[in-house]
């Protein structure tokens, strides 16, 4: 089973040289730490920055330099600043190659819910609806089951949707799965020490298992 760092490390392997990547809050943010130094990858922060760097050294924080999670950050050489309309313009025009974000639920046809629990949590969707509606390549980073032990990979989402038919891949503490265009979670890899049976038990939606499922390499 993977910890959060493991999930981030596994997702980092999906990133290719030359990619522009938008990382959501939470586990996706950690992915930045595991992108190989040899690769030219540019991180987009939807509040208006291309070229996000690591957190600043203590004492060097700048209130005017933050990411979409409102965290103080730094900018790398070759950064560019722009306004919010252009930021979502480049997202909508599919100039961002990969979007990695968290989810509360994903359905077997690629719907995602991650912004609202009626009567309980009303924080808003932020940029998530724009990202999932436009990105060509969306990877969800999340736990396979919720705190109540219920599967988050469902036949249908029960929570209000963020977007429909959009998630392409899911990486959890147990497995890597593709969401097939025709519907269904296709099991690609098992986390180290996790059995196919455990993944089956944790997946409420249609799980497609073909042939031997390899253990993932991180």
């Amino acid at each position: 089973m993977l910890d959060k760092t493991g999930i981030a490390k596994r997702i980092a392997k999906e990133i290719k040289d030359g990619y522009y990547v938008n990382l959501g809050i939470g586990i996706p943010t950690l992915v930045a730490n595991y992108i190989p130094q040899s690769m030219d990858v540019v991180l987009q922060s939807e509040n208006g920055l291309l070229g996000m760097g690591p957190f600043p050294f203590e004492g060097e924080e700048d209130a005017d330099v933050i990411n979409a999670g409102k965290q103080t950050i730094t900018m790398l050489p070759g950064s560019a600043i722009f306004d919010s309309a252009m930021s979502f313009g480049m997202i909508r025009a599919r100039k961002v190659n990969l979007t990695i974000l968290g989810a509360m639920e994903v359905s077997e046809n690629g719907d995602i819910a991650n912004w609202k629990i009626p009567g309980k949590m009303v924080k808003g969707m932020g940029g998530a609806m724009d990202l999932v509606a436009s990105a060509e390549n969306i990877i969800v980073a999340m736990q396979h089951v919720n705190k109540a032990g219920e599967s988050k990979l469902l036949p249908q989402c029960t929570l209000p949707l963020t977007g429909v038919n959009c998630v392409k891949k899911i990486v959890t503490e147990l497995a890597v799965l593709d969401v097939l265009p025709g519907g269904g979670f296709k099991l690609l890899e098992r986390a180290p020490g996790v059995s196919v049976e455990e993944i089956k038990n944790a997946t409420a939606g249609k799980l497609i298992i073909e042939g031997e499922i390899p253990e993932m390499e991180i």
Partner: protein
Amino acid sequence: MNKVYSNADEAIADIANGMTLMLGGFGLCGLPENCIAALVKKGVKELTCISNNAGVDDFGIGLMLKQHQVKKMISSYVGENAEFERQLLSGELEVELIPQGTLATRCMAAGYGMPAIFTPAGIGTEVAEGKEVRNFNGKDYLMEMAFDADFAIVKAWKGDSMGNLVYRSTARNFNPVMAMAGKITIAEVEELVEPGQLDPDYVHTPGIYVHRIFQGVNYEKRIEQRTVRSKQ
């Protein structure tokens, strides 16, 4: 053409109860701090506020919420404010949550004289309820309307007396698109300079969009999530 005001109180003097305001900033970054303080002092009420966030309990638009000055918030993310949540759940506050890109683009539409724009954000979700859906090249889009705000209130780094504005780093965010979108646009700046002191090639908001400008004071520029790494 006298656009220069001496302070926030003067610049916002004619903002009246019931008006619709756009307020720049992302989280607490790039906030028009002086104008917000002046609005709180003036006690103007029943406002509709278009702003990406609702501030925190004791800063930003949170200060206006605390005084019950806001009737309705139009935002994309409001998760940092307990008083906000209380007012929302008790029904004191009306809230319209919309996607962040939709918020930005509806501002830009107003500034560019476009009555509506198309975006796929929200298709298939409750955001799409009651809205026109239109298919282009096999993909569905929502038609979203340009905003109509009485005032846009923005914060820039530098500005000149003709209203030209320059923003600094990610404090730019929603400020330029809102600056274009207000019927009347008020800009507060950290440094007010004379015409000719800003390079025309690097003006972010041309002065034609800005009706009032003043040199702000005592910027707190609060940091919401101070994250650092230690020097090794």
